[in-house]
């Protein structure tokens, strides 16, 4: 089943074309990676899909529903959740609050019902709490649940960000460099973790990653961007042997 599809999305900032005619097709349950040298436009692709930028042209479909041009919060409610390249947690708030906030989009009580604490609101609040605690337990942060999120070590902040994204009940999860700045052990754990949550939460995963170990280890398919243009697409094996990709990453040899 088709989960996420983009048709020739292009993003221009003034005269600069950050991404050109990017077409993507992700099926349900796949783990797909987007790689490319720095400044290739990978995060721009993410920002277009999640509604931070409106594509200059092209269309984006989630489960065959056109979601081009919706606001980020709408797109999240349709079922796309994301994490950020440079962690964007709610720093001053506790781990629990961070996850609880991601439940807010499904709240049905209005603010007056919330202030008066109607039984309807109390029930919703209780459900949110139970669900959040369950998630926090799942990602192994139960012992720090009341800590300020900025006080956590880097690896745990990454996990918390994923937990927060999961709390929005996504069907597809977009991870922007989840392994950035992690040591080999943490990277290995993360790879396992991504696979596990994919199975457990019935997710489709689309990620940007520089760590080739992670990318080659878990992706079903890989897209390669260079200067905003898709230069290759295929399974890890094909990508590793693709001359264009090698050229983009390592350059061309002089005597070739």
């Amino acid at each position, binding site marked *: 089943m088709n989960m996420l599809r983009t048709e020739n999305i292009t993003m221009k900032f003034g005269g600069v074309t950050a991404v050109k005619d990017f077409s993507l097709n992700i099926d349900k349950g796949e783990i797909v990676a987007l790689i490319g040298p720095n400044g290739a436009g990978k995060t721009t692709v993410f920002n277009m899909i999640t509604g931070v930028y409106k594509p200059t042209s092209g269309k984006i479909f989630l489960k065959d529903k056109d979601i081009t041009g919706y*606001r980020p919060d709408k797109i999240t409610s349709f079922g796309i959740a994301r994490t950020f390249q440079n962690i964007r947690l709610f720093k001053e708030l506790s781990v629990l609050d961070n996850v*609880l906030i991601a439940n807010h*989009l499904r709240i049905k*009580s209005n603010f007056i019902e919330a*202030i008066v*604490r109607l039984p309807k609101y109390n029930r919703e609040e209780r459900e949110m709490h139970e669900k959040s605690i369950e998630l926090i337990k799942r990602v192994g942060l139960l012992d720090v649940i009341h800590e300020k999120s900025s006080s956590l070590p880097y690896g745990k902040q990454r996990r918390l960000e994923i937990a927060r994204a999961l709390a929005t009940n996504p069907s597809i999860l977009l991870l922007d460099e989840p392994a950035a700045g992690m040591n080999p052990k943490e990277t290995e754990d993360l790879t396992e973790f991504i696979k596990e949550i994919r199975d457990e939460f019935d997710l489709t995963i689309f990620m940007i990653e520089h760590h080739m170990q992670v990318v080659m280890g878990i992706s079903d398919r890989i897209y390669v961007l260079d200067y905003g243009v898709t230069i290759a697409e295929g399974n890890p094996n094909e990508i590793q042997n693709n001359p264009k990709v090698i050229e983009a990453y390592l350059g061309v040899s002089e005597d070739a």
Partner: protein
Amino acid sequence: MKRKKYNIIFSVILIILLFVILYFAKLYLDDYKSRILNLCAIYTILGLSLNLINGFTGLFSLGHAGFMAIGAYTTALLTMPIPIKEQNFFMAPLISPLDKIVWPFLPSLILGGILAAFVAFLIGAPVLRLKGDYLAIATLGFSEIIRVIFTNTQRLTNGALGLKGIPNTTNLFWSFGIAVITLIVMILLINSSYGRAFKAIREDEIAAENMGINLFKHKILAFTIGAFFAGIGGGLLGNLIGAIDPLMFRFFLTYNILLIIVLGGMGSITGTVISAFIITISMEALRFLDESINLGFFTIRGIPGLRMVVFSVLLMMVILFFRNGLMGNKEITLDILANKLSKKPLTKGGVKR
């Protein structure tokens, strides 16, 4: 859950105790002292409402004086007896039907709040698209626009002459009663899912939006609720002082409230309450600075407004050295008090704090 029940009972006892104290205060305090206490409560309301916008939602708004003016004029015009209205509007008669109606205090106050909230809703739509300093400038401008409009609508607000002889309905029970209600509403709101969404917007707008929070809706909500309580605070203030004019609602008034929340801690309810009392009382207590002071060997000539210099210096000190104010974004809750009293160390995850 059990703890929650105790907390509610304890809060109720505290509130009853407060009103018993107020009863005696009303009996024994002279006019001057009870007016200061009234002001404390009113500034608490205003501080809490501004803190909801600035401290909790992170919108740097300076439009509070404008909302207060709307509330104060609405309440005053609705509660003033007809003969006094006629006395006030000798230049041009008050437009009908306002010249014929006299409402009781509570509905007037609430209507004042609702009107302030409605105006906040209208100006919020364009203004809340701005961020940071730009928002501050836009809201400040709005507040001045309100003031200028009120100066020039002779038949509605009596222009620069202001309104005199407003019934002095505000007493300790009114001001503290509404302050307690505001406090409870704020605590319940901030600790609800909506309150968490507000804080999320303060912490990181982009992340909040990507977590499914409708930025615009929540910003408008915080702004409107804040304006509602500002309107009510303004109404209480007008009916406490007995006379209002547009000059009362200059930027200076917003600055006072801003001082309260910055000193108390942006994003702390208890901090705001404590600092509202400290600032209001010291604003009166420092009045001797405005008069001439005889130091024995040297006499300082009285400079009106010198006491405000103290607050400016205080504000600078806070911004330079105690960026978080009195409380930061922490709260004194009954749980913490109970733990302190029973001398049990607060433990969380086995860590002694």
